[in-house]
């Protein structure tokens, strides 16, 4: 004889991933580094932006990249060429990185270097505007990219990604003269779903807007790592 019972779990559906993400974040805390999760649709310019940004900030920040890619290591090769330590994470058919994959990447990174020497760890996610928004990997901040060629409606069509982002970069603004799209409208739609996001308009090709983005990165990284040290001291 069986009696019907009910237990209340009240757990997040993603609890298993969140536990692993929390574990990754503990490592980042111990290493005193800032971890950024960079997300966008395929071809929005994540790798191009990282190439110029890492090159520009290399004199001031120690950095490494965990590079998510579905099948190839092409992006990892591009980034290794600018002289930054890169760990490729091939996700196979998965359309996003999850916390366990990043944990595996961290172990590989530790085989290459001592992560405590780093100031900033980039996680370049798989190109996708949907799934990565729900899979935290232990990052401190989410950075979303939207290229002007994607149109001004994307923040409204993929609102969760842009809502979750702490910083949104509108990329490829050098192409604006050739497009029937108003960058103000893109920014307006980003702010409609996320009024608190820090928004930059940039072009990795022309260099437009990069200075402000780099200054923000520098000050955000330094502020975060200084606070982490203070928290440790008590």
């Amino acid at each position: 004889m069986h009696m019907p019972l009910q237990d209340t779990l009240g757990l997040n559906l993603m609890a298993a991933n969140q536990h692993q993400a929390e574990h990754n974040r503990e490592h980042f805390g111990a290493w005193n580094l800032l971890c950024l999760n960079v997300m966008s649709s395929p071809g929005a310019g994540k790798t191009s932006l990282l190439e110029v940004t890492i090159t520009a900030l290399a004199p001031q920040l120690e950095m490494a990249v965990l590079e998510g890619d579905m099948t190839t290591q092409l992006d990892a090769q591009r980034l290794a060429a600018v002289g930054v330590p890169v760990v490729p994470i091939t996700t196979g058919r998965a359309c996003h990185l999850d916390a366990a994959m990043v944990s595996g990447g961290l172990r590989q990174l530790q085989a290459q270097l001592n992560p405590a020497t780093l100031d900033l760890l980039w996680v370049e996610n798989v190109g996708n505007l949907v799934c990565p928004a729900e899979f935290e990997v232990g990052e401190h901040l989410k950075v979303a990219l939207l290229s002007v060629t994607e149109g001004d409606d994307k923040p409204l069509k993929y609102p969760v990604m842009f809502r979750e982002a702490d910083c949104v970069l509108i990329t490829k603004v050098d192409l604006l003269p050739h497009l029937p799209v108003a960058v103000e409208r893109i920014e307006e739609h980003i702010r409609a779903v996320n009024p608190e996001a820090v928004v930059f308009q940039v072009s990795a090709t022309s260099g437009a807007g990069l200075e402000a983005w780099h200054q923000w990165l520098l000050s955000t990284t330094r502020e975060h790592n200084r606070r982490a040290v203070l928290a440790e001291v008590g």
Partner: protein
Amino acid sequence: MHEVDMTKCLLLSLQEWKQGHEPHTPVVEAVHLQVGDFTCVEPEALRFTFAAAVQGTWLDGATLQIDTVPLRARCLACSTVYAPDPEQAYRSPCCDRPMEEIVSGRELRIRTVDYSLPAQASASAALPSR
């Protein structure tokens, strides 16, 4: 199809819950979820992947019951709770403010599990509700 990975997360949590009932194995009838409209989860895809994943496991026969939660936001100018409309850029109809405070719609929650245990075990084995 990220619902596959979400199902894996769900199964890990259920596995942990099951361990709380050892040495008995609960027979799960239904798992109740709350899924907000402002998430990247497609309830139908989640039901499909769950049904496929539990076949031949201790959860075989369990169904996934999903309650969807509508997106609601509070206008910070006048405190009105409204249903954000993508066609209106999610802005508040009362004061034309951007979507600031989300009141509901981001839920991804495992609420309850309906199950049974052999009669001699059920008297003592139910976990206290949280």
